[in-house]
């Protein structure tokens, strides 16, 4: 076995271990909530509901989906995108349009699950909506990416920031576009159909099934992310990320390769948007702001740009801290020490501090990709090489 084959084999084994770990955690959480917790005493139930509620865990899966989508753009292709929330919004509105009574001028039921008495509107099956959500956002990725991806670094970041602001604003003010109510403006679109999968309706209180559904979505995204990275396209993305000029000289079509990363990365946002809309039963324009884009970016950077499992860990940690961690840890500290700190209000201070510390001491993230770690530690390597050379010279 050559060194290269051995390295590929090691990566494959490592991915397999992580995949088993992810599936095990999902499976254990599901079984725990279906069989153990309903029969546990109140104290245990309360603890899990406070610290690891299924709602929060399902939300974490959505964040993982989003972060993995952005990881394709930022982590793989090295394109800084500050407006990823736009894809979340687009995916959410696809669910709003195709799974609710909102477009009441139509009455379409295509393997959908409209509630009794609310048959007006468009009611597509959840699988179809997930596919259409991904396709729709990919198209928007192409539309946005087309004119912008010839830009580089700061300029690209600013343009994506612009799109990230424009699309949510459109959603917020889209209740009267040439006389058409497209988004219902600030009121949002509520009353989404309950998802029906192979004849089984996931009801309002069927949280384990909801969790399993979004976990499968996140699992699929993990699978495709890994497969893409290992494929020809993924290697082209990584080559562009490392050195655009060198990649170009080696025959990598720059624009087309960047373009594909933007379109494929957008799919994660779209599917996640559909999943999130289903989880909360609607889509509301208030959610889609710049802060969300930054949080997703922070998940990618802190987890380890380019490394799927690092991004999964980064998204899990930050999403948990954001949803329940700060509140619960704060309560625990306040109850223990009799203090009255409002920990959630220090969220951005803590996030900022964490980012600063990470940039100072572990720039490559929690679980960096090996290649990224080498790039981030290039200076140290150069120093080592220099010392070695000096030593060599001195030894002569």
């Amino acid at each position, binding site marked *: 076995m050559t060194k290269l084959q051995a390295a590929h084999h090691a990566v494959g084994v490592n991915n397999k271990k*992580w995949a088993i770990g992810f599936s095990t955690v999902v499976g254990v959480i599901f079984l725990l909530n279906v069989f153990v917790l309903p029969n546990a005493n109140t*104290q245990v139930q309360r603890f899990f509901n406070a*610290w690891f509620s299924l709602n929060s865990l399902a939300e974490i899966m959505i964040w993982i989906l989003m972060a993995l989508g952005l990881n394709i753009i930022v982590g793989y292709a090295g394109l800084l995108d500050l407006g990823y929330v736009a894809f979340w919004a687009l995916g959410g509105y696809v669910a709003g349009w195709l799974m609710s009574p909102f477009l*009441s001028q139509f009455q379409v039921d295509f393997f959908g699950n409209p509630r009794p008495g609310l048959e007006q509107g468009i009611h597509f099956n959840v699988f179809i909506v997930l596919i259409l959500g991904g396709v729709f956002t990919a198209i928007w990725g192409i539309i946005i990416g087309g004119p912008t991806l010839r830009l580089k670094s700061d300029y690209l970041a600013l343009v994506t920031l612009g799109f990230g602001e424009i699309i949510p604003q459109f959603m917020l003010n889209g209740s009267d576009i040439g006389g058409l109510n497209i988004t219902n403006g600030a009121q949002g679109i*509520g*009353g989404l159909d309950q998802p029906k999968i192979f004849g089984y309706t996931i009801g*309002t209180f069927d949280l384990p099934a909801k969790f399993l559904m979004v976990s499968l979505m996140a699992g699929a995204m993990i699978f495709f992310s890994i497969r893409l990275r290992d494929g020809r396209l993924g290697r082209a993305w990584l080559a562009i990320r490392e050195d655009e000029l060198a990649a170009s000289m080696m025959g990598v079509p720059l624009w087309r390769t960047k373009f594909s990363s933007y379109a494929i990365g957008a799919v994660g946002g779209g599917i996640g948007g559909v999943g999130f809309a289903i989880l909360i039963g609607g889509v509301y324009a208030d959610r889609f702001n710049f802060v969300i884009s930054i949080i997703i970016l922070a998940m990618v950077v802190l987890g380890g740009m380019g490394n799927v499992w690092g991004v999964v860990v980064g998204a899990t940690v930050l999403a948990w801290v954001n949803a329940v961690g700060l509140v619960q840890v704060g309560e625990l500290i306040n109850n223990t020490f009799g203090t009255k700190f409002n920990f959630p209000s220090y969220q951005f201070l803590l996030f900022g501090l964490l980012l600063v510390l990470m940039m100072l001491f572990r720039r490559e993230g929690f679980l960096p990709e090996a290649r990224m770690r080498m790039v981030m530690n290039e200076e140290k390597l150069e120093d080592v090489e220099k010392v070695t050379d000096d030593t060599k010279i001195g030894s002569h």
Partner: protein
Amino acid sequence: MIKPIKIGALALAGALALAACSGGEEASDSAAGGEVLIVGTDLPIQGASADASKSTNEVVALVLEQAGGKAGDYSVAIKEYDNSTAAKGAWDDAACAKNAQDHVANTNEVAIMGTYNSGCAKIIIPVANEAGLLMVSHANTYPGLTIEWDAGEPALYYPSGARNYARVIAHDGFQGTAAAQYMYNELGKRTLALLDDTQAYGIGLADAVEAEFTKLGGTVLRSGWDIKAGSINTSTFEKVKGQGADIVYYAGIFDNNGVQLVKDKTAVLGDNTVFPSMAPDGFSGYPTLREMPEAEGLWMTFAGKSLDGIKKGGGAPAAFIDAYIAKYGYEPNSSYAVYGGVAMQVIMKAIAASDGTRAGVLAAVFSGEPICLSAEESVSGMGFCLNQETGDVDTVTMTLQQMTGGVETDIRAIEVK
């Protein structure tokens, strides 16, 4: 290399160990032991509405305290839920969805007091509805929550087919009706220039004004105003002047280019002594508007009783405000906070009239004798009964105000049936 399976196993073991050791929840357990019924308040505790929510929770706590912690034969406790996140600094859809499930999962919880934002209510109502859990809001003014409005509303919030949601504040439709009645009946105006800001709130309000003014026999000249900051609207006013309008109504929010709008109106039609104008509570509370000489004499409505009105009204409501100040050292943050107390009073009446179960509490509001609060017992000084078909109050007190000397001065209360 870190072994993910080990990490998962360690995390689970740690979680279980923490659960076993956790004793902090013991006090709450006794409250949830079947003796004490829980009322959950669901408000945005972080961000711009934090002060208003803090004050609302304090008012709710004081209402319960003054009742000796009991509603009828049942001991009642309050559990505060936060539907906001620090990241957004406002209500958050995911937090609302989680709270909805938590309300239902807390088996001793028999009612929800809230929410503050109608958007959050849209997420919580359907979940609570399927669980047969009563929800009473003190601040949701979006009409579609209780009456036909947008497509599918309000049915899409009530999947069980039965109602579970009520509110003690007037929805935007009431405010429009009150304004139309005042302009037609009391100011004697017959041709209304009705301008809306083309936003959801403004359009809804304008629809209500137009319907009532037309019903009364008046003529409505309706158009939208340009909300881009600094945009000139003089042509709109020139047009309505030519059509014989004798009053202007601004259906919308002052933030939407209100400064220029009011200036343009004065420039074309004259000040409010010559050509009167009226605005909803979307124009209330803006220091910029108060400082504008063009705003002098502007008629305004507020959906409910203002804090000033409650204090001046005397009696038990004013005494309640005094008790609040004595306990906390400051006034309630807003009128909405006081209406939180009214919502709590409704819930406590429902609990007192029930068998202590969720179904019983819900039935006490939506079947049998309607829940009513007299003006003397309501902490807002506003008497009403809840309509069992819609969950809205049957009588709404609006406060009529006029801008005098740079102050929104209460003129009187207007009752709308």
